[in-house]
């Protein structure tokens, strides 16, 4: 089964949640973190990651910071205040969705 499809719609929520738990992150670090947390079950592809990050940046949900690391520039993303609020509502939305799915998959017949 292509597991990634299930997560396609949730990429923004995943990114916001990751940035909420970590002060600031850069693109490659995010891909590795997702792999590590899900033990390789979920991979955020590079082709999906950057457009999603850039969209969050344009919406003012994340802010960027650039640092020189190992002779190259590294772009870090961190949540803005607006982004923090959005994370709370996005997570609530996702939880509600998961709950609904749970009910659908395990209906309790009385």
């Amino acid at each position, binding site marked *: 089964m292509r597991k990634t499809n299930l997560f396609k719609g949730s990429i923004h929520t995943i990114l916001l949640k990751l940035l909420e738990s970590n002060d600031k992150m850069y693109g490659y670090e995010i891909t590795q973190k997702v792999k590590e947390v899900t033990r390789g079950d979920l991979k955020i*592809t590079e082709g999906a990651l950057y457009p999603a990050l850039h969209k969050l940046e344009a919406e003012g949900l994340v802010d960027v910071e650039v640092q020189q690391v190992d002779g190259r520039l590294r772009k870090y993303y961190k949540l803005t205040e607006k982004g923090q609020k959005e994370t709370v509502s996005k997570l609530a939305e996702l939880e509600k969705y998961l709950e609904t799915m749970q009910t659908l998959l395990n209906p309790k017949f009385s």
Partner: protein
Amino acid sequence: MSENYKHRVVSKQEIQELFGFTRKHYVAYYDLQTELVDHLANGIEEQWKTNSYISFEDALQVEFKKFGIFGFSDIIEQRQKVLSKRYYKMVGKEMLTFFKVPRIILSLGSMYLIYWLLMHFSYGFEFVMGVTVLMAIIALVLMIRNKKNRTEKKKKFLLEEIIFNYGGAFAVVHVPFNFLNIYFNRIDDNGVVVFYYALIISITLVLLYVYGFICFFYIPKRAHKYLTQVYPEYNKFE
């Protein structure tokens, strides 16, 4: 392996090769290049941690494949979309700021003046159009002069390109010429434009003048402020 063992890292020369690689794959803008170069370099170094014998070129190909069959094109396209949207938001915000006192009075005054000229003078339309053409010529001259004065930079930033191409604002120049159609069809026996068309023309023209002013003068003059907001690294490359 001793704890002090250091894995191979991407060298300065290889970083330059990575920049060349992104350029070869149609990433024209420096802002996107730096992000992709760092990503590729991280991936290559990660591979060297488990296999120090893999060559730089082979490791790069492995990393590039992870971007899928379309390579960087989706990322470039999305970035362009996002930054164009950001530019138009910027223009919209500046236009709203523009229409505050006292400039709103000036704008309403100009609208009334155009309306009055169209309604009361036989050659009002020609006069208004003449002024508009003159403004378009001034904008064009400024555009050409600005282009000449801006030295070709090695490092191009996408938003900078959008700002100094005026977000394609020159394309709206044709709008007033659509009024010619109105002019030939909607004038009364005295040669003046009927009132509702005069109203539409006066409102549209003033909005266009303000739009032109924002795109051709206001935003390019404050480009540095906008660019450092979007690109924290921008200051280093001026």
